[in-house]
């Protein structure tokens, strides 16, 4: 069961990157997953169509928190348009471990929060399927 991918997830769980809040963020979104009680809240600053800063807060299982932590690392410097197109597969590749169907929700919560935030920011409507990649 031990693997470098799992070790990395545990590291992000215990030492989350970009943890905290941003004052006056351009994008601020929060959601939860009733199964594990996971909560993710994302704060984003946007400059010229590019994500200039990201922070997140949350609590929950290792998978949900590591997923958010790793996602924030990926996002800084990314164009909004590219962030909008991130897919479920991108998140699964980023985590690199096998996930059972129930745990997919944990892994994808951060993506859902990100996309809901981005679409709200852009004033666009988000379909439910789209939110989960």
């Amino acid at each position, binding site marked *: 069961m031990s693997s470098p991918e799992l*070790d990395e997830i*545990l590291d992000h769980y215990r030492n989350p990157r970009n943890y905290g809040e941003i004052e006056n963020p351009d994008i601020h979104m929060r959601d939860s997953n009733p199964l594990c*009680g996971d909560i993710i809240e994302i704060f984003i600053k946007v400059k010229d169509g590019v994500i200039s800063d990201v922070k997140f807060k949350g609590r*929950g299982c290792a*998978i949900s928190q590591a997923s958010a932590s790793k996602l924030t690392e990926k996002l800084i410097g990314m164009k909004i348009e590219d962030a909008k197109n991130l897919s479920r597969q991108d998140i699964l590749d980023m985590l690199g471990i096998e996930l*059972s169907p129930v745990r997919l929700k944990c892994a994808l919560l951060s993506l859902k929060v990100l996309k809901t935030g981005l679409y709200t920011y852009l004033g666009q409507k988000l379909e439910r399927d789209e939110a989960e990649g």
Partner: protein
Amino acid sequence: MFDPVILRKDFPIFEREINGKRLIYLDNAATTQKPKQVIDAIKNYYEKYNANVHRGVYRLSIESTELYENARKIVAEFIGAKDWREVIFTRNTTESINLVAYAYGLHNLKQGDKIVLTEMEHHSNIVPWQNIASLKKAKIYYIPVTDNGYLETDLIDKYLKDASIFAFTHASNVLGTINPVNELVKTAKEYGVITLIDGAQAIPHLPVNVSSIDADFYAFSGHKMLGPLGIGVLYANRMLLEEMGPFLCGGEMIREVSLENSSWNEVPWKFEAGTPSVADAVGLSEAIKYLTRIGIDNIKRHELKLIEYSLQSLIKIPRLKVIGPMEPNDRTGLLSFILADIHPHDLAEFLDNKYGIAVRAGHHCAMPIHTKYGLAATIRASFYIYNTIEEIDILGNALREALRVFKAE
């Protein structure tokens, strides 16, 4: 005393393997497994007796009605009700509590009335009352729980003296705490407060006599006591039932219907609208026969042995923290805990994948008590008649292994 290893042979599900391992089922507080006697009784009902009840004049319907009403008598005797009319079949504890909240609460509570609950309630004994309280502008108060998992019994008088309804759990599904129901009901009666006991975690595990407890209402679920899913019970004081209006309305619960109005059927059928789940009532009566055969006292003794052993052995695991009373005699056979900083869901998945151990992870439908202890979630291992000391040892080893795998030593 029974031998759990021999009893297991009655439960077909234990022939199953989970991820190549023998199933170790430790989620009995959620629902118990079913012995073949119960499964066969349900099958036999559908194969030989299936017909709607209370209406037919033909043989099958008469027999089906007899089986259904006989199941009610078996339940009544098992819980010590004086009269079978005091036993109402519902779907589960949740429906039983809703029945009381709506059929009694909605019609009797007034603005400003006081509903008293406790901090250790399951959501099913909180949310219906919140709904009624908001409809009637009544107020809800929660009796606090101490740090070691007991109800603050010193405060009972203060809470009950001007209350209208007191609804509380007999045994907590998170802490395992067995509440002093006799005392609580006695105090409530002194103040003229109507009492409802949530017995979902008590009836399967302890000898319970509803007549000597003397609460107005007592609710429980069949599926947590070897019975099928989809059948529950509300025991209620007959006088109150006679006075109360119906809960759900439709067929079965009426005497006469005209286009203008209807008159109600007699108790208990007044509260059983629509076609009931006869097969499940029969299944429950079979489960009761099974439990009676092995003896509820023996079940309590067996669980006490398991919880004593768990409290001694699991507690030695580094960074394992248990919630609830440390005195095994004050609790039922379940143990909620956290292990280091491993999130309960990650831990539960590990236990299932690597060891075939089924435990609950989360707030177990009791968020307020978790919030009180500053926890978002716990792991809960809950035992029943077929669990063994050996399984607790396997759980212990698995938890030690988890500390290594999750790098939490």
